[in-house]
């Protein structure tokens, strides 16, 4: 849960949506208005914050908040 809040706080840096208003179905590009580079920069910040390593190709397939959280959970567990 703490991880999810931290994750959403990072997301909120790049958009106008508040962490508490974010839902798993929201799409980064279409709903949150992330530019392609915002998304890359955000992924880099996830790596640094949670000390995980993302496979760029897999990470770029992520479309929604829910998918990103799922990927993060998996990597943190590993």
């Amino acid at each position, binding site marked *: 849960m703490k991880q999810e809040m931290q994750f959403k706080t990072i997301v909120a*840096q790049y958009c106008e949506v508040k962490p508490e208003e974010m839902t798993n179905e929201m799409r980064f590009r279409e709903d949150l208005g992330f530019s392609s580079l915002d998304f890359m*920069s955000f992924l880099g910040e996830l790596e640094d914050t949670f000390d995980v390593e993302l496979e*760029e190709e897999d990470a770029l397939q992520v479309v929604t908040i829910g998918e990103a959280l799922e990927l993060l959970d998996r990597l943190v567990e590993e």
Partner: protein
Amino acid sequence: MLIRDILEESGKKFSDITAVKWLKKKEILERSYRELMENVQTIRAGLVKKGFDGKHIALIGNSSVEWIESYLGIITGKNVAVPLDAGLPAEDLTELINRSDAEALFLSPKESKLLDEILEKCSGLKSIWMLQEEAFSASDELSEKALRNDIKLSDLTEFLSEKADNSGDASGRPEKDDVATIIFTSGTTGKSKGVMLTQNNLAENVISVDYEAEPGSVLLSVLPIHHAFCLVMDWLKGFSLGATICINDSLLHMVRNMSVFKPGVMLMVPLMIETIYKRISGADPSVPKEVLAEKVFGGNLHTIFTGGAHLDPYYIDQFAEYGVEVLEGYGMSECSPVISSNTVKVHKPGSIGKPLSNVEISFDNGEILVKGSSVMSGYYKMPEETAETLKDGWLHTGDKGYMDEDGFLFINGRVKNLIILSNGENISPEEIENKLALGELVGEVIVTGENNGLTARIYPEQEVVQAKGFNEEQIREELQSFIDGYNKKQPTYRQITGLVVRKNPFIKSSTRKIKRQEVLIDEPAE
């Protein structure tokens, strides 16, 4: 003047200075100017030995020391380098390899998945070298296919192993008006155009950009290397100054790599500046600015040169508060690429600077025209497009602008249809519309640039809607899923991030062409 002249001088003057640094996992590797020039010479001589002299040679891959050494090995001899965007779909890349008449290819190992299709479709190729210094082992299937199609598949060891018996440089020097490189750029007709730049075009641009730096100054290269702005201004200009050029391994790690390499100077497109600004402004306000600047910019960054799209001057003031000066310039591949730039000494926020010393500017109904020694010789095998763009020696930029009383240039509109995104990518809407039109539910489509992304406005094919009995929601779902499928195969800058499903057909002109200027007005996004 040749690029080779500039490089040879740098090789002598800066031989012990580090020319390139890059990361391998977490280790920083480096190459000195002496080592770099040795490899460039070895590749140049090797190409001639293998029968490539005066040939077109393509390169596909992200920035790497192997990429730049191979590129320089090509253009310092009589061959012509054709850098291609590794992010393009395989079918586009094979088409460009064929259309540019490339007879050989340097391919990044990361892109080895392209080999199958390239071997299948690019019958003009005689050799492919993987951009790696270790032996490449191809699968049996690929090896057989290469053999069957008479294409030699190898790697850089083929060149570098011959370094020991380097019996002198057999390759001749190019002439200054020889084409050095062909760079593909979006065309307004939906077909990308190969900009032919000569040796002199490139060298004059390198010399005419007014920027001085101490040898060994650190520059972090974050832009795509196949773009003229990155290739000429990061790499060729950087080498001319004896700079140490550090390679950003991924856009995911741009900020982290600023801390790793601690650059003094960077070239960016406006999108990067906007993204970094979000990170700064989203940070805890109690953190002092100096601490934040060190964390985000690495501690040594003092100058960012930006170009490729317009930058809101707001960011110039904001970055100045962190001790970083942002200098905006203007250019296009057709001009090698810089046309004008703000400089450390002479700048005016909101302008795109004064024209370079080798550039003449004129205006035709507000359109900026450019003449000078960096203007391309034409588009490869496109005489009509060349004639439309180059008239009486004047290049028609497609941008509208004016010059103020102090000689600073400003841009205030566009003549052509291209969409310029803030990542500097020029998008031809027609090129994407042609692809989207293949969807069975797509009746009419227009692509527009909105909110710094691409929006597809689609009028559904009514016959399909009726045959399948789709309601509004189903139409939207079907179209979104079609667009998701399209997006998966495209580089991020060509992905569609907005969808407007139209209720009515587009308004057409008397020649039945869609009136583009009306599409945002008659049915705006909800």
